């Protein structure tokens, strides 16, 4: 496998009337081609904003930290995403090397333009296809994602398709430009379980066929367990744990990940009590000092957690957590 993207020290703040809000704080990760990374966290953890930063797709009041470095490794050499300025330059990344699938497919298609027209439009922007070629490719893609009678569907509008069908069309559209990286932001959350299972299968097939990397954003750890190779867990803009899917789910190292798993109802043991994480996620305007999770953490260790930002420490060869529990150095003195 070859390296697809490196994200280093991604920090993102938003200028608002109430002051500057930190949405993403010093996040680093990388992804290989053909690899699926699950990005997990509660609402407000900054997972969507992180993913959108990879194409600088954040509103104008977004301020990136000076140390932020995002490198996309394409066939023609590395691209420094942060240095891209104009919309023309951004085209290499947005919809070109990176495609995005949203949660709500109804809101992501223009309602008054047919599905096919929208697919052709973006193909013509990003490729050198003629209109006829673009149409041919689009119909082919619709067929590939399991939409029956694709040439009829091509001419239909979003409202004429069911939820599962729309999400398939969204995937077809996102993949028709053959992106290197696909960002899927809660792609199955709005779907019923039986349809979710179909869409997950489809996405798995497509990864192996196209060999692209996927960043799969979800709050559903079950979906992560079934799709991802590795997992990154976020809390309040911070990456708190990273590792292979087996390590993180079977041997969670960060108290937050453990809390998430304990709160999850599973069918394996229906008598197990559900243990909520105490308290609510703090407002981004009042980010706790030290470890951002210390206000809700069950395993707080004295004053250190409130004072010192934990570093990432290795728990296993491919598994790391940002928690003082795994970095006892400070206690040695």
């Amino acid at each position: 496998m070859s390296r697809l993207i490196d994200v280093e020290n991604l920090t993102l703040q938003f200028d608002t009337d109430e002051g500057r809000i930190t949405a993403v704080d010093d996040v680093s990760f990388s992804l290989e081609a053909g690899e699926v990374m699950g990005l997990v966290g509660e609402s407000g953890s900054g997972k969507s904003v992180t993913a959108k930063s990879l194409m600088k797709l954040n509103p104008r009041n977004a301020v990136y930290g000076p140390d932020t470095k995002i490198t996309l490794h394409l066939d023609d050499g590395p691209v420094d995403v942060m240095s891209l300025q104009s919309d023309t330059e951004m085209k290499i990344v947005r919809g070109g090397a990176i495609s995005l699938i949203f949660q709500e497919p109804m809101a992501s298609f223009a309602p008054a333009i047919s599905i096919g027209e929208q697919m052709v439009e973006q193909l013509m922007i990003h490729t050198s296809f003629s209109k006829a070629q673009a149409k041919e490719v689009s119909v082919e893609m619709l067929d590939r994602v399991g939409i029956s009678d694709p040439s009829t569907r091509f001419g239909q509008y979003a409202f004429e398709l069911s939820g599962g069908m729309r999400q398939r069309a969204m995937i077809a559209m996102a993949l028709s430009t053959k992106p290197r990286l696909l960002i899927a932001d809660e792609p199955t959350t709005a779907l019923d379980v039986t349809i979710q299972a179909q869409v997950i299968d489809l996405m798995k097939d497509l990864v192996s066929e196209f060999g692209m990397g996927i960043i799969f954003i979800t709050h559903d750890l079950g979906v992560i367990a079934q799709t991802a190779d590795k997992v990154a867990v976020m809390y309040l803009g911070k990456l708190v744990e990273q590792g292979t899917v087996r390590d993180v789910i079977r041997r969670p190292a960060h108290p937050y990940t453990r809390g998430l798993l304990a709160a999850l109802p599973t069918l394996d043991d229906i008598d197990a009590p559900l243990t909520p994480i105490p308290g609510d996620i703090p407002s981004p305007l009042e980010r706790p000092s030290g470890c951002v999770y210390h206000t809700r953490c069950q395993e707080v260790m004295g004053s250190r957690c409130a004072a010192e930002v934990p570093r990432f420490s290795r728990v296993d060869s491919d598994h790391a957590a940002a928690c003082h529990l795994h970095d006892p150095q400070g206690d040695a003195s």
Partner: protein
Amino acid sequence: MSDKPLITAQNLSVHYPLRGSLLGPKPYVGAVENVSIEITPGSFFGLVGESGSGKTTLGRAMLRAAPISKGDVLFDDGEVAYSLKNLGKKELKDYRTRAQLIFQDPYAALSPRMTVRDIIAEPLEVMGLTNSRAETDERVREIAAKCRLNVEHLRRFPHAFSGGQRQRISIARALVSAPKFIVADESVAALDVSIQADVLNLLKAIQQDMGLTFLFISHDLSVVAHVCDHVAVMYLGRLVETAPTRTLFSTPRHPYTQALLSAIPSLDPDDRGKAQKLEGEIPSPTNPPPGCKFQTRCPMAIDRCRVEEPALESAGPEHHVACHRWKELAV
């Protein structure tokens, strides 16, 4: 469970009219068709199904918030006995104090212009259940405390609260009239898992504390498995299987229930690809298939399923299933 049921749906159908031609029979959508369920007092009854299965409509019909086209819903809490189909205006008003609904989206369900105190007090004032403002305040404080909201919270507006806190406000409002029966329609679906666990635990605690009976509508089978004692599965307006929770999850008999259970993503990363996959999607209720409604997606369908609609049969104690082939499949 030999208790007399608190609420019973008897061959209940809910039809919505469709625009049709002037001649011939009036077309309609059968959102709920011939559904019978009994909910005993103090139980946590789960109702599951995909979107379009009619679970919300059934829940609303049991609150008399959807039209009852055929059959009836009977309510009997020992103080009053109502047939919801023939309810006078005064009785309906009384029924509203005894049966309440908790909505799905705590962001949409609370008026942004009212304080939390006013939101919770509104049902008391509208229904005229209290005689003085002092009495209302006391009742509001009491119920708020049960839902872990403090006096300070009561003065604020909903925008100041997180999703979990808002859902606790919605619960307090539903409980303030001291109802006997609560319909919770996807009440935790919009919440994060850590908060969801908190709200589920709260619902359970309140149920035991106040002796409530719940109809818990959800698409999430793992949640239902954890909180409900009895589960009914719906598909395209029909009841396909109903059983005590343990029985349903250990020995599901209907192919649809089996498929639903196996479609839940397992937390075990080495369990991939074992799921039994359903093809296709739920048909439109305006044009339901003949015979068994599930036959278009059922891997077990035979010719009989395409012409004859299966009736509910007993498959064990309190376990009912509507499938022509469940006996063969059970072996």
